[in-house]
């Protein structure tokens, strides 16, 4: 006798973020800053059909905008975003790293003025090369260990 159990329920209306780098789901949640009253499923270190492991996030009743979804690329560049309506995928796209990120991140340089008690919003710009690095607009340094620099 065999019966397949779904580890996570299907959603009728909402967003599924698939192909998140393994163990990065919680960082994605922090980047998105979604409120805790939403129903969500978090699958960590799931087997990927493409091989290896991945994380998956499902949000019931939340349709992420492209701008919000692209923030996912800050911590998981190859994630895919699926918008679900009536149980079906109506839109699917890859998260793209935003050229400028305001707020959300803090500078990894402890001596940067943006880490002081000043009335400013942090700002980072995507580097011009392919290395997916962000540069602080204030101190001009590359942000190091980006996932850890997401403001809580």
């Amino acid at each position, binding site marked *: 006798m065999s019966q397949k159990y779904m580890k996570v329920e299907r959603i009728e209306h909402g967003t599924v973020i698939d192909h998140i780098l393994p163990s990065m789901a919680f960082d994605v949640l922090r980047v998105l800053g979604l409120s805790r009253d939403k129903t969500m499923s978090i699958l960590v270190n799931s087997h990927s059909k493409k091989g290896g492991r991945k994380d998956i996030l499902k949000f019931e009743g939340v349709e992420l905008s492209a701008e919000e979804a692209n923030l996912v690329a800050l911590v998981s560049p190859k994630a895919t975003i699926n918008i679900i309506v009536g149980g079906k995928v109506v839109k699917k796209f890859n998260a793209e790293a935003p050229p400028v990120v305001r707020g959300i991140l803090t500078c990894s340089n402890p001596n940067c*003025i943006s880490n002081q008690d000043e009335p*400013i919003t942090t700002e980072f710009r995507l580097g011009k090369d392919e290395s997916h690095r962000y540069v602080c607009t204030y*101190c001009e340094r590359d942000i190091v260990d980006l996932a850890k620099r997401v403001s809580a």
Partner: protein
Amino acid sequence: MRHVISVHDLSVEQIKDVLDRAEGMLPIARGEAVNDCLRGKVLGSIFFEPSTRTRLSFETAMNRLGGGVIGFAGTEATSVVKGETLADTIRMVSGYADAVVLRHPREGAAKLATEFSGVPILNAGDGAGQHPTQTLLDLFTIRQEMGRLEGLNISLVGDLRYGRTVHSLAFALSKFGNTINLVSPEGLEMPGEVVEHLEASGQFGTACHTPEKVIANTDILYVTRIQKERFPDPVEYEKVAGKYRIDPELVSKGPDSMIVMHPLPRINEIVPEVDVMPQAKYFTQAFNGVPVRMALLSMVIGGA
């Protein structure tokens, strides 16, 4: 040009324009001619950190052009000790002055200042970050002494890791097409991003640990201080510092046309006997802070 914040913001044309104007300012800087193009204007000079040359040369530059200076050097007698933010200090000073020159211990302070100031900001050094007016006076001295800014072999010697002057200078020199050698003690090497930039632009020469290796092919020996506090063991510091002491014997191994520069202050990395050699240009370099800062002030305040 509105603000002067980072050497990265300056194009080759803008750099040449500043240097040309600085050349025109030389007789005024020497007191041989009079120009009061900034008469009635006020410079806010706010230095949160110690400075001798930068502060005094900015003040001299403003005075030579007929303007006045307000400000402070050290925060003891200011509201900063009461916890005033830099943003508020800048808002206030920019209401009193026609331009603000700022030195601050935090990287990015000058950039922040531009967001709260109604008048031009000149960065006089922000932490380990940028010090663009130093870079411009270095370039001015190189052009004055060598007659050009390109096709030169420049050896940067000393603490290349923490010295902001050499980072900015390396970037600026790479805009013109030069060969840049990096000579530093182990552990104080040039940061990777600067080396990568030099390599990518085909301007990286040699990296080594003793100046003797590059001296024979050096047009400009640019020496910086090795700070004692970088070494946990004073004996180790003495050993390293000894290897980087520039003396007449070393200088004489370079080409006759070689010049020796230093942003100053020096401690003992260039022995005093070098001062009288024709190659020694570090006091000329310090003087050049005046015409270069005159040029910058006339451009940002005077709208020249």
